[in-house]
């Protein structure tokens, strides 16, 4: 294909206008020794060919429309109302850029204002920005913000925070001076406030937890906030915003910064991206908020309008004094979430969240009926839960794959002590019949192992 409209005649006319005889002269200022006009990539394809190629590549993946999936762990399979894609697919939204010129960008600006409002309502926080790259990088920026706000250097990071998020924080702050203190999780799957207290000191800028946490469990944020605030640290909470359709929002429980992964709100799994970093905090921290912010104001005729505001915080103007370098963000994903939240609305988000909760609890209950399988934690959970298995998790997942099911997340990857455990997730998209099939496979595997008496690599349960 070819997206360059200039014909040879056009090219000649332009060259003539600028007094050149060949396009090569346009590059006279390049060092000849470094010129290289040939690129070793495949030749151009026609639209028919490229479409066929991409279809074939895509069809060599097992897509989740055709494979029941019990993976969560930071990326969720939820229903995306048709309306969301129709709106997001409007060229006016996807082929425009950052609304630097508000008079011709009110569409984007108003939707961002609505997005900020929705995130505040969902989290019960005061202010929110226009988005971050994803949940992990939002959490890293929150930790940096907490360090700046408190002028302290230690981040207390719960081990029940998503392992990849913890890695990202580590990467982000390796250039800075503060350090991370991992904190173990107890039998309830949550963080004991007393335990947190024992780690707090004058240098702790913030305590970082996830809600629901990586194991699906629900920490007592209120109790944690009390403890954390006693030493002047901030409570930073990474949320699954969809869960907030049902759960008490962290803003009502004492959180100072709420970040999260917006993907469950109308964004497809897309093999891990693009997703949507949420970032909300208290009004007093407005000048510490990273990223873009849209505000409502009035125009010369007194009409309501929207603009990018507080731009003096940003790297455009502050340059080396900026605390974050984020520039382009996830605006279109924020739009998707805005449309999603408007569409499902008050009643719908609650319904979706309840369906997730109910399906996950049904599955958990059924799994526990299989001899040898038991839940690792006894605290309340939302739509994910950890199962200790009498058969190696990898083996179970292979067996599930044989019947077309994408199984759970193998926790041994990140938690050696949980190398016999799978993290299962259920959402409104999981059919009861598929859950029953999954349980049936576990039952067969369990029975086979019992029969053979074979020792699997997974830890046998007591």
């Amino acid at each position, binding site marked *: 294909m070819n997206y360059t409209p200039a014909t040879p005649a056009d090219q000649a006319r332009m060259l003539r206008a*600028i007094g050149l005889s060949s396009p090569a002269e346009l590059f006279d200022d390049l060092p000849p020794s470094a010129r290289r006009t040939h690129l070793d990539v495949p030749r151009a394809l026609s639209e028919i060919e490229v479409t066929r190629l991409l279809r074939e590549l895509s069809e*060599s993946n097992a897509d989740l429309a055709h494979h029941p999936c019990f993976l969560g762990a930071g990326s969720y399979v939820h229903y995306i109302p048709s309306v969301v894609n129709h709106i997001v697919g409007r*060229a006016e939204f996807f082929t425009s850029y950052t609304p630097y010129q508000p008079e011709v960008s009110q569409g984007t600006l108003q939707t961002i204002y609505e997005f900020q409002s929705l995130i505040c309502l969902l989290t019960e926080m005061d202010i929110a920005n226009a988005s971050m790259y994803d949940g992990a990088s939002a959490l890293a920026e929150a930790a940096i913000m907490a360090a700046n706000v408190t002028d302290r250097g230690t981040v207390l990071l719960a081990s029940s925070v998503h392992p990849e998020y913890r890695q990202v924080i580590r990467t982000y702050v390796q250039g800075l001076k503060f350090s991370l203190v991992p904190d173990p999780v107890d039998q309830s799957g949550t963080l004991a406030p007393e335990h947190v207290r024992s780690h707090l000191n004058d240098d702790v800028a913030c305590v970082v937890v996830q809600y629901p946490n990586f194991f699906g469990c629900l920490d007592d944020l209120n109790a944690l906030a009390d403890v954390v605030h006693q030493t002047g640290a901030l409570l930073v909470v990474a949320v699954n915003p969809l869960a907030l359709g049902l759960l008490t929002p962290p803003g009502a429980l004492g959180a100072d910064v709420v970040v999260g992964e917006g993907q469950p709100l109308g964004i497809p*799994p897309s093999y891990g991206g693009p997703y949507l970093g949420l970032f909300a905090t208290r009004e007093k921290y407005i000048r510490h908020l990273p990223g873009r912010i849209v505000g409502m104001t009035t125009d010369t005729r007194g009409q309501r309008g929207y603009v990018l505001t507080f731009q003096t915080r940003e790297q455009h103007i502050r340059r080396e004094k900026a605390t974050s370098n984020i520039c382009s963000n996830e605006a279109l994903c924020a739009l998707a979430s805005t449309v999603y939240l408007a569409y499902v609305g008050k009643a719908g988000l609650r319904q979706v969240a309840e369906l997730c909760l109910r399906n996950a609890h049904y599955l958990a209950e059924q799994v526990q009926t299989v001899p040898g399988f038991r839940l690792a934690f006894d605290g309340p959970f939302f739509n994910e839960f950890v199962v200790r298995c009498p058969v190696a998790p990898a083996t179970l997942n292979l067996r599930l794959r044989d019947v077309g099911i994408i199984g759970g997340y193998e926790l041994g990857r990140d938690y050696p002590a949980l190398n016999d455990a799978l993290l299962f997730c259920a959402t409104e998209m999981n059919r009861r019949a598929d859950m029953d099939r999954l349980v049936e496979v576990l039952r067969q595997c369990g029975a086979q192992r019992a029969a053979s008496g074979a020792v699997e690599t997974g830890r046998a349960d007591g």
Partner: protein
Amino acid sequence: MAEPLIFERSSPGRAAASLPAPEVPVVPLDELVPAAFVRADLPLPEVGELDVVRHFTRLSQKNVCIDTTFYPLGSCTMKYNPKVNEDAARLPGFAQIHPYQPEATVQGALQLMYDLQTYLAEIGGMDAVTLQPAAGAHGELTGMLMVRAYHDERGDVERKRVLIPDSAHGTNPATATMVGYQVQSIPSDDRGNLDLSALRSALGPDVAALMITIPSTFGLFDERILEVIGAIHEVGGLVYGDGANMNAMLGQARFGDLGVDVMHFNLHKTFTTPHGGGGPPAGPVGVKALLAPYLPTPVVARRARADGSLEYYFDYARPRSIGKIKAFYGNFGMMVRAYTYIRSIGAEGLEHVGEAAVLNANYLMERLKGAYDLYVDRRCKHEFVLSGRRQRRATGVRTLDLAKRLIDYGFHPPTIYFPIVIEEAIMIEPTETESLETLDEFAEAMLAIAKEAEENPDLVKHAPHTTEIGRLDEVAAVRRPNLRWKPA
């Protein structure tokens, strides 16, 4: 027409969504989760499906966009976003796959990533590529963390300074700071090159790196680029190449061949993934071999199976890696689009992009340089920077006014007031996907406005006149911040 907020369209009890009834036995909620965890109220909008559709469709029409309007926003490469890219990214086999699916079930995705890594490495003249960074700025962070890891690992821990031209985009200094470096700004000379003597006097054993944008944000190619890069290397520093403007270089010279050690690509600029009203972007990073060990984990690798067929997999065994910079593997949806673009236009297309983009820019510059001051009058690359100072001095018409007036002529304004070192800057990047006819129409408008600025400055100062919304009170927006809707 003014569009109310979606909240103002809400009516109690109205609903768009319909969800299925639970298939599982329904037990009381508090048997599943303690009541304390259940929120009392969820103050979201209550609207019908048509309300939602009409609201956002109307809002969409309040934007101009590439698909309706020439959008010569300098440094943003607002080129045409092919529709076929969008179709590809929406295929269920790409959009509906989970990042933790077994690798065997996503070989197509992995192959696409592997090939994209390979193509980008070739295009940048780099030895290895990570696709993980989510944006240009994120790529800068990734790259500079690798620079730091490199120096640190060599015990070269005294390197504290990063040199950055004064023309650089704000993300460059902000990134260097985030990584813990001190930023030293290097001025430009009057040909728009880096001031070589200033650079030389800033050199020293404590220089960690130079971050340089190629071509520069003046739209110029540094005529002594090899000397500049050589000088940094001589003191043991590394060179970070900001590839945001790389469109100009396609088919002409590769960053790696110029001596750049680490660089980022902007898939949303050079590789036509859509800008989406501000994102999602994607900022893969390419490195020379010396930095490859530090790339974020995982990278996509390939090996032969027993039967000789190829298998793609994630290589996590990277002990010297800086770690992860983002959850999962990067903005995969953008990778699909960029891959589609590269395969669509192929080698011959890519090789032609730079030339076509640069020709368009030079033609437009030629047409406008009489009516507006030109920052440096020499061959530009993908873009050029005019200055509105002549207009400002003559009749008080500012660059902002010129930009607003362009809206009345049916164009999206160029980037203005950047680079910040240029007075009343107007930074114009036409891209290669615009036709000569469009360039001419834009030139006519710019010339007409220059005339208006002389003859009827008030007309320009109060522009735009054709939009629903006039200029907005940005001061009030900060003084009395209204950043969200609140329930009554």
